[in-house]
């Protein structure tokens, strides 16, 4: 969750889904990684790329911001844990997901978190 807060502090527009989102909503779930839906757009992808480069264990392995424009997903190992950036999900459903999202404070950073309903719906879809 700290990884999401750090990226948010880095002005990356992203939205937390997955088990970390459920945990922030108060659900008693184990969090092994962080799933982030990324807002599409060149400027945001560049901020994401720069932000990830500052926390990735192997920054040289990161794809360029341009590649992130068409990649479905980028998984990055950071010192805060594994971060999965769901780029395609952002391209397909950012508007809908962000409409129902809420901002939750992590330390003094605001993390945009998808609604519980949307998180569970995404999980179901992923598992199917």
């Amino acid at each position, binding site marked *: 969750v*700290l990884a999401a807060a*750090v990226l948010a502090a*880095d002005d990356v527009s992203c939205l937390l889904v997955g088990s970390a989102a459920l945990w922030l909503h108060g659900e008693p779930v184990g969090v*092994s990684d962080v799933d982030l839906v990324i807002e599409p757009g060149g400027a945001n992808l560049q901020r994401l790329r720069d932000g990830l480069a500052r926390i990735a*264990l192997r920054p040289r392995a990161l794809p360029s911001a341009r590649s992130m424009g068409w990649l479905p997903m980028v998984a990055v*190992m*950071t010192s805060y844990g594994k971060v999965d950036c769901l780029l395609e999900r952002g391209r397909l459903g950012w508007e809908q997901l962000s409409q129902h999202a809420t901002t939750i404070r992590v*330390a003094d950073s605001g993390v945009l978190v998808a609604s519980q309903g949307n998180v569970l719906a995404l999980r179901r879809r992923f598992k199917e």
Partner: protein
Amino acid sequence: VGERSGIGLVELSMLEALDSLGARADRRPRRSVRVLQAVDTQIGLAPGYAYQLLVDLAQPWTLALPLVDGVGNFGSRGNDPPANYRYTDTRLSRAGEVALAAERGTLAPVPIGLINGNTHREGLRPPFAPDRVIKALRQVIRHPRVSDGELTEIIGPPDFLTGCAVTGDLAAMAAGQATDLVLYASVTAGEDGRQIIIENTPPYFSTDDVVCGIAQRARDHHWARNHPELSTHARLPLADVRDASKRGNYRFVCVPEPGTGPDEIIEQLRLVYGVQTRVPVLLPKPLPRMIRSWVRAFRDEDLLGSLATLEEAIAGQAVPSQ
């Protein structure tokens, strides 16, 4: 999976290939490329894929019972990759010979799969301490009415070769339920009280990445002024991080910034990814039942004899470093 040893079919094919080339534990090793060609001929697995498995079988820090004895550069726990298969040699280890004999029926079954597990390849079965598994099997053979609780206690928690601590819902794991194990390194204040020593880091995570991650967390964030609270959580007040590893004994030294005591940072360091990791586990059935059904399945064979042979093989193999 080979039923009589619990190792995978591809692994078994590697052992068959080594044996067919005469690369036994007491003979000279053979070029890995020849072994991989034999595997390719046997099961059609290309050398590039098969080599990753061969390397796993030979790395003493990956498996509690390495089935292959590797000669040459087989990589490290850091980011150093093994040398190409044209430049390494391999032969069967003693445990590999025992596994092969069990699969061929010349020896009663041995629980090598149960001991090694498969979490090293992102599987869900964790490794267990060889001596404890053997003790539990002997207990069931000699005293079939031993309780499930006693068996679980004999086997103990999963045992990872790096010596990392293991926590989590161990009762759920032993009951055959899906759960996460939390593995973490030893993080202690040094004798001089000015350093922090990190040892026994969890497996399946590059030691180079652990150092890199800690060093990265010590850097300043450009947003620190706007988010001071987040900065205190995200940034480690360290002046220096050193890799003090020697000959496979992995040890990292962190020096706190002036004015910061080690105790203030130890808890934060314990949360750094790589110093602590989670491993999902799910046993195919409850642990005591696994032990009992293994004994029941092969009750007509000389299990006590094969366990003694396995013990001898373990004793004959070099003690792996972390």
